[in-house]
């Protein structure tokens, strides 16, 4: 029970509450829903134990699923991006930075951070909507949902990160 864990737990709770009670009700043009909770995964620092990040992702997904009646969808997708996050982060890390390098706008720079965030957001949205529409497949609708939600999520993440930096 160290301070780092408690901090993460706070973020975990806040992101879930915001997602479930506010963001889940937003459906811009009936396609775009911001999925801000993946910001939690973006924040994991370099060399964060992978088993821990996957467990965080899984449990966050289960809670989100429970509230939105989509069992397994967010849980599966979040576990996946928690697993690939270190590999996406790796190429962006500047040389001779510390072992627990914290990805953020101030450490990576705005363009680099945007790339990092957009890659993970896009992967997440593709997986999430593919799982959600499994039984009801319509390519155009799927594409609209993926692109719309990715953009909206990305914008929201950049705004939150920007505000937090100051």
């Amino acid at each position, binding site marked *: 029970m160290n301070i780092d864990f408690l901090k993460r737990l706070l973020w975990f709770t806040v992101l879930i509450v915001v997602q479930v009670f506010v963001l889940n009700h937003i459906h811009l043009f009936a396609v775009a829903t911001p999925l801000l909770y993946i910001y939690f995964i973006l924040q994991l620092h370099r060399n964060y134990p992978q088993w821990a990040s996957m467990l965080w992702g899984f449990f966050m*997904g289960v809670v989100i699923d*429970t*509230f939105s009646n989509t069992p*397994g969808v967010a849980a599966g997708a979040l576990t996946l991006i928690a697993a690939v996050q270190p590999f996406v982060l790796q190429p962006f890390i500047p040389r001779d930075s510390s072992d627990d390098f914290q990805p953020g706008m101030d450490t990576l720079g705005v363009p680099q951070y945007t790339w990092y965030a957009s890659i993970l957001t896009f992967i997440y949205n593709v997986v999430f909507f593919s799982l959600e529409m499994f039984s*009801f497949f319509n390519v155009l609708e799927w594409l609209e949902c993926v692109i719309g939600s990715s953009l909206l999520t990305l914008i929201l993440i950049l705004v939150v990160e920007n505000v937090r930096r100051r």
Partner: protein
Amino acid sequence: MHNLTEFLAKYKHWFLFVALEVLSMVLLFRFNDYQGSVWFTSANYVTGVAYEATSKVTSYLSMGALNEKLTKRNVELEQQVRELSSKLYDKTKDSIYLQKGQYHFLSKFRLIQAKVVSNSLDRPDNFITINKGTWDGVRKDMGVACGNGVVGIVYMAGIHYAVVIPVLNSKSNISCSIQGRNYFGYLHWNGGASNMAYLDDVPRHAKFKLGDRIVTSGYSSVFPAGVLVGKIKHVYNSEDGLSYRLAVQLSTDFGNLRDVCVIDDASIREQRQVIKAAQDSIKPLEEQNATQGQ
């Protein structure tokens, strides 16, 4: 052996990854027929309480418009009752029969009042959570209606909350008929507008006109006959050309749903038991035929 343990230790997070993904997929694919999964849906107590608290707050915001609508509906119904009872009195000249008849009709159903605590419109499969569960007498497969018309069918019931499959779900399938003409079909919804659904399998020789009322048929052993569903808006041919497909303008406003009631109909329960008994008695016959055929 040493190599094996080293291998396992080295790749332990990948095993965890696979295990978690498998667990998610199990949740995903078993949700539809796995009654125990009541824990992982909004029928569970914790999510129910959380949703109820927020819906209490938001319901204040739309109270005015809702009240107005209810009053209007009330006036409309009162007028209808007056009209019908005067007609009945003209026919029978017997006011005692009139009172008896209405009592009889009401005593057949028990209505369980419930509030909607979570709702969605824009997914391919929408669900509604209501704040009454098995302790209040709500059971799986009971019909749910609101003041304006039909809402859906109870899919899962927790102790205090239940999940309803509304008309706006691709799995919803309600038997309906055209009021006054008695031709029947099945009501389906396949995405898109939240005020439109389709009545499939209406026979080609059926006579009806646009604007006719669609009501539940009472065949599905979920709803009693005569609960309002909507009005006919368009007529299409079915894909195979053998029947009509009617576009139905739903009378229920799913975007503004607060108070609903679950219909507990004793006679429906009996009907279902009889059907089940009949099916069970046919089964041995079929099995016999199958073995004889071989």
